[in-house]
């Protein structure tokens, strides 16, 4: 391709920026005639603002961010769409050694079984309350984030009230280890590599992982300025094809060493490649042992980059649950339409790849890998269970929201 269309995308230094980094560094964007520039940012607020003023056309983004923007919850007016997800999983819950020691004193704790971790945490919280100690503090990266919602989901399902029994603070990902070292937080839920960074520094233990709380669950998306997307459909389609190829490259185990080396560079994550390599393979040093977590981070398999509208609606259900937005049919529709599988399909239909026929699925229904209906070829989804066995059927949104309402309301 002779002419090159410039696209500038913002990202935060996280493992799941991998697909964007690979698209640029491995030439996938260039092959599609796109000159992709990646700009590392320091906050999600900067990402949002710089899209709003036109510095970036798109960005690596927390999946609930486009939903929050379209619901008018952000300080700056901005319409965003998510035509692609940037992988599944990738987060962990990490706690201080002090808290971990208290937790294992309460009973057996297995990081791959969030219910055991939650039960011990609940006992610790009850002891602290009886002793008149201050509530434990947990850090998450943003109020509209998978981290906030999976942490709260896990706590609530374990009988811990995230509003009353603990305090949840916002801590930027690269500062989580510092905040723990300074004793400002007792635990945090953050994307890799920042859990492993805290463990490697001898500061903390990985208590459990996102993939164990909700297997094959959504995390980051490609958030695109809707106005720009409307005017550059063809360029966006080419970029999505480049990202699709990049995701397959990232998903191949034999490329993980090279991917880890790329991501470790000073312009990207600026962290040791060995630490990133482990997380890409789902092999994490938890602080006591080496844990193997199936589907820890999934960049390609299981339709990992397909923007399921059921994912958008689940995030919306949690925004309602925690009082960020009132529930209405109109709001739910805005949330659903923030994810754009139609754009994904139309961009990728030129390639001979299996595209899911449905735009929504029942989340948590698959207990084993299952073949699903696709346009061509074969596609295996799941398992995709929530650790508590619950199921989210997007067709029963009202009931799901009602069932999660706190008893006091």
């Amino acid at each position, binding site marked *: 391709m002779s002419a090159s269309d410039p696209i500038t995308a913002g990202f935060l230094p996280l493992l799941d920026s991998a697909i964007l980094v690979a698209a640029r560094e491995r030439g996938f964007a260039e092959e599609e005639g796109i000159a992709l520039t990646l700009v590392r940012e*320091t*906050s*999600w*607020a*900067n990402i949002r*603002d*710089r899209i*709003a*003023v*036109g*510095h970036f056309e798109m960005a690596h983004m927390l999946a609930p961010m486009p939903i929050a923007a379209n619901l*008018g*919850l952000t*300080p*700056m*007016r901005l319409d965003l769409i998510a035509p692609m997800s940037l992988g599944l999983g990738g987060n962990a819950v990490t706690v201080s050694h002090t808290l971990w020691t208290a937790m294992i004193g309460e009973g057996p704790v297995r990081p791959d079984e969030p219910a055991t971790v939650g039960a011990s945490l609940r006992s610790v919280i009850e002891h602290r309350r009886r002793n008149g100690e201050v509530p434990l503090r947990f850090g998450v*990266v*943003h*109020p509209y984030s998978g981290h906030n919602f999976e942490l709260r989901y896990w706590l609530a399902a374990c009988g811990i009230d995230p509003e009353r029994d603990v305090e949840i*603070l*916002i*801590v*930027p990902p*690269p*500062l989580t280890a510092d905040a723990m070292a*300074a004793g*400002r937080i007792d635990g945090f839920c953050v994307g890799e590599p920042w859990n492993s960074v805290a463990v490697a520094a001898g500061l903390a233990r990985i208590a459990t992982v996102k993939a164990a709380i909700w297997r094959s669950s959504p995390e980051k998306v490609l958030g695109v300025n809707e106005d720009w997307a409307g005017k550059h459909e063809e360029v966006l389609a080419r970029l999505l094809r480049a990202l699709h190829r990049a995701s397959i490259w990232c998903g191949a185990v034999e490329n993980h060493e090279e991917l880890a080396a790329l991501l470790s560079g000073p312009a990207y994550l600026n962290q040791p490649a060995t630490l990133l390599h482990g997380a890409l393979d789902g092999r994490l040093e938890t602080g006591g042992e080496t844990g193997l977590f199936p589907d820890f981070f999934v960049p390609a398999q299981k339709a990992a980059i397909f923007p399921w509208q059921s994912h958008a609606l689940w995030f919306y259900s949690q925004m309602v649950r925690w*009082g*960020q*937005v*009132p529930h209405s049919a109109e709001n739910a529709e805005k949330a659903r339409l923030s994810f754009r599988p139609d754009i994904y399909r139309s961009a990728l239909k030129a390639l001979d790849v299996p595209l899911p026929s449905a735009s929504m699925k029942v989340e948590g229904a698959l207990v084993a890998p299952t073949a699903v209906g696709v346009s061509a070829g074969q596609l295996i989804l799941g398992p995709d269970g929530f650790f508590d066995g619950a199921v989210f059927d997007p067709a029963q949104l009202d009931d799901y929201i009602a069932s999660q309402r706190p008893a006091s309301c």
Partner: protein
Amino acid sequence: MTRCAMLKHTRKEGMVSKLLSILVIDENTIRASIIEAGLREAGHEKVTVIHDVHAIARRIGEVQPDVIVIDLENPNRDMLENMFNLSRAVKRPIAMFVDRSDQASIEAAVDAGVSAYVVDGLRQERVKPILDMAISRFNAFSRMERELEDARDALESRKIVEKAKGILMRSKGLSEESAYQLLRRTAMNQNRKISEIAQSLITASELLGG
């Protein structure tokens, strides 16, 4: 933390005569004092500067700012915005920027690397001069930093050229002037900077044990 609860609180305009309380959050102490000075010169007396954001909730409670100015490099913006949504920490609702419709100001601010949060309902003409001031001082600071960096680079290049001249004078028995002319001619022929040629020469000389 519902939005409707925030919007109900829109402040009345009965406090026009009251001095605005301005909070500047900037980890760069020099830039913060440049902005503070600018605001004071413009007649704002209630200016508070914070470099360290750790105890910020308490400070915001004490200062009760009408306007908050923060640099965009600060990774704690997400934490700060979340705080604005929680009535516990901030008693008054805070919206971002002067006015959502004032796109030019927003662009100028982001370009300059600064963001502002304003108590909801504060009239635009009261806040705009503050934001304009912050933008111009941020730009001036960047310019100053660039100039300083250029000066540092120039000094560094001069040292490198001096060293390369020394090598040529020793190894080829040239005068200082001829050594310089040789470097300059080579740079011109290769369309490169003289300091780059000098650096290559130093590297080569080191490799050869010269």
